[in-house]
């Protein structure tokens, strides 16, 4: 499957999806770590892709949603942003609402 199709599929099939450096329980970047922790704190399942282990995704993800950096977090098929946005939404309680809404819609 073409890499852009793989990214599209991951974003569409997972209510919450993070493309990060490393894995949620073994992050390899401070920003990826913060974002993954914010998602884990929401208590819902989420999909993840380790872009260090998938160089093709790493090289092509920036043009998928015209976003130049990692991590990238998608909720309900939409890019919500990177680590700073995810942490800020987590702190003001919005992230939980967004994750809950997307998870219900997907179930």
């Amino acid at each position, binding site marked *: 499957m073409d890499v852009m199709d793989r990214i599209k599929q991951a974003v569409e099939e997972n209510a919450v999806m993070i493309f990060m450096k490393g894995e949620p329980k073994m992050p390899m970047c401070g*920003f990826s770590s913060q974002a993954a922790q914010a998602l884990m704190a929401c208590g819902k399942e989420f999909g993840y892709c380790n872009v260090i282990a998938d160089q093709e995704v790493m090289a092509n993800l920036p043009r998928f949603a*015209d*976003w*130049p*950096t990692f991590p990238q977090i998608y909720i309900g098929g939409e*890019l*919500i*942003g*990177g*680590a*700073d*946005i995810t942490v*800020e*939404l987590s702190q003001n309680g919005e992230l939980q609402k967004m994750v809950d809404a997307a998870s219900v819609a997907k179930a």
Partner: protein
Amino acid sequence: MNMQTQIEAKLNQSFNINFLEVVNETHMHNVPADAESHFKVTLVSNDFEGKMLVARHRMINKTLAEEISNIHALALHTMTEEEYFKKFGKIPESPQCMGGGA
């Protein structure tokens, strides 16, 4: 021009700025001593009024596209003047004089 100055200059050109702070955080990372790789931007501007965080970050990403391609990390914190006031209870502080006018 170093990277920090370049980032400040580009943002100054592109935004109506109430407060801008660019911090070089490279020393917090395991990189060569002369590297300029990790930066944090705090930008308070009423240009962000009515815009979601993702849109605000896109505005900065576009302005700093060239710089982003040459550094490893750019942390972004974006607020309107009102949001800053709500969060910190005061208007953004101007930086201290550092003696440059003497």
